[in-house]
């Protein structure tokens, strides 16, 4: 339905909540906002209960500013910190059960394709390391094997933050966390390589140090998923609470990790690369 979906019926402007009117008048619907304009437009997510200094909250804020088609986007999440912010955005959000995101997204995307074959309806999963790589591992992998056309974004804080700081498969080896009282016994799982092997057509890994690059990566992942197949972004979004990172040091920590194991990495199939070259020639929108 696109913009009709957000438009206010004539005469109702003064009765609609202020938030809604502001979103219609000053929000990102129907236009591409630049992430560097944050603060100059009504954002899709504003209030949230995430901890002070949470880098995941920052990433999610950029995510919503980067959506290429917010009026026709559905976000899917699962238990964990991310959904605390995702559930408060002005974009439909589905919270199913534990670790089921990629199965729910498979059914939803297929249903939307059946009902709206000629419309763009973007489905995006944003879930944590626990949701996607531990409890939801099978469903994450199989959605990729089946070549389901949606984007999966892992906001990796390397811990079960929302349940009180337990080890996850993405925690680095040796780190002492709850349920790992002697330190984690095995390596951080290589999610990016798994995604490539499982059939993702666009895979990226980043630490959120460069907002413009985050936005471009998110847009690319969503555009590639529309046309070619599953796409995956592995984003480092530190947990400053469980990893005891002082609030004013979270960016410093992200930069440090970027130099270690979160250097920006982008991989795509040849046909996706050709597609980006084509559209980036035509538009400034996803220009490198």
């Amino acid at each position: 339905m696109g913009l009709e979906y957000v438009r206010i019926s004539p005469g109702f402007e003064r009765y609609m909540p202020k938030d809604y009117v502001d979103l219609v008048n000053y929000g990102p619907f129907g236009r591409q906002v630049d992430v560097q304009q944050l603060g100059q437009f009504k954002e899709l997510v504003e209030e949230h209960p995430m901890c002070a200094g949470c880098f995941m909250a920052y990433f999610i804020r950029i995510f919503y500013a980067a959506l290429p088609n917010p009026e026709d986007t559905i976000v899917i999440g699962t238990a964990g910190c991310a959904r605390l912010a995702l559930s408060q955005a002005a974009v439909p959000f589905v919270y199913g059960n534990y670790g089921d995101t990629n199965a729910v997204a498979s059914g939803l995307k297929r249903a939307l394709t059946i009902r709206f074959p000629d419309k763009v309806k973007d489905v995006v999963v944003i879930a944590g390391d626990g949701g996607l790589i531990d409890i939801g591992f099978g469903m994450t992998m199989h959605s990729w094997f089946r070549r389901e056309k949606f984007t999966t974004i892992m906001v990796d804080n390397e811990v079960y933050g929302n349940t009180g700081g337990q080890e996850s498969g993405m925690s680095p080896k040796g780190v002492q966390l709850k349920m790992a009282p002697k330190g984690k016994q095995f390596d951080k799982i290589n999610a990016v390589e798994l995604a490539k092997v499982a059939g993702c057509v666009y895979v990226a890994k980043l630490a959120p140090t460069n907002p413009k690059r985050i936005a471009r990566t998110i847009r690319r992942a969503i555009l590639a998923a529309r046309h070619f197949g599953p796409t995956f972004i592995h984003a480092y979004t530190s947990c400053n609470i469980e990893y005891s990172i002082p609030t004013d040091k979270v960016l410093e920590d992200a930069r440090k990790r970027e130099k270690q194991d979160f250097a920006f990495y982008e991989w795509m199939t040849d046909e996706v690369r050709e597609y980006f070259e084509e559209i980036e020639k035509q538009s400034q929108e996803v220009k490198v």
Partner: protein
Amino acid sequence: MPEQRVVDADYLLLEAPRERKFITGAQAMAEAVKRANVDIAIAYPITPQSEVMHLVGDLWAQGYLKDYYRAEEEYGAMSAIAGAVRGGVRAFTATSGPGLLRGFEAIASWPGHRIPAVLGVLTRVVNAPLSIQPDNIEIAYLLNCGMIVLHAENQQDVFDFTLAGFVISEKVDVYIPVAVCTEGFFVTHAKGYVNMTPEDMKLPPRDPYKAPVPPTDCEIPPARIQRDAPVQKSNFMSYLIHAVWQQEVWASNRRAMKYIYKYLGGPIEVVNPDAEVFIVASGCAAAQGREAVRYAQMEGLNVGLVKVKSIRPFPEKEIREVLKKAKAVIVPEHNIIGWLAREIKATIPDNDKVIGGPRVYGGMTLPVELIMEKIYDVFGIKKERKVVV
């Protein structure tokens, strides 16, 4: 495939001509899906259910369905069903025993998510020790999740309950999923006569906007605005919201009863309403109970049958009324715990007259003679056991 035309749901279920075929229960379920204008089916193998989803896969290959795939496992299948139904399409899947339990976290959340869909439950033993035979203990797990639970006696019931299941499930004042249960093998792999509606007629497509909860498709204004999820607002808000929502789920479940009357002729069937002693049974046990009533009549004993078609909503009022004057109530079952006997005992005031059993489990057959022994007991008839070697 023949060209199918959409006909009114009431016409298809209540008036359309029927043709008699001799088919298995699995075929009967697939034949109902064929006529139900289903958009997507998601399959995962488990014995004895697989046959149903093979046949439904063939329907997709022939063009009756728009999408179909074999999922990674039941939790994935049941979650994807939820996603598809939220996206506004009509969806179907089926499972058995351990598969039901593996998918159960997702299934148990369907009513709360207001997911109208039909789930075939072709019962078998829940491990362990392993057996794949038709024990129906898994129905006990379904009873408390909010779903509508129908229990089919035979191939005809499977066809009728499945086709009507889609219609009941999508009623605006119901809008929760329907489980159509029947015993694996005894019904799924055995043939019986089924009167079926014409192959060239189908239900109207699902209208996802005729709904108490809109689909998630970015098509219905107003757009969502920023708001809190209940659980993070406060614990008080989260339990309040959960409480009122679940009350509505169970109220929806009860509201389905009028449609069970309309489309399935009511939640119970009574044979010999003036009987002195009643057998109350569901599924295959009802078929054996029917035989026991016939045996008893031949011996001049006044025995009747209450077949319970709808386990949720449970026909409390109806069962209390029928059993008011009964001297004894015999509840034969295909499971060890006797979930139906518990339901009956919780329903009637003078429940010391309920005889829980005979019960067979592990997937054994239920010989009519076992039911007859209970009947002789309540009539005080002493019979010599004949042991044939």
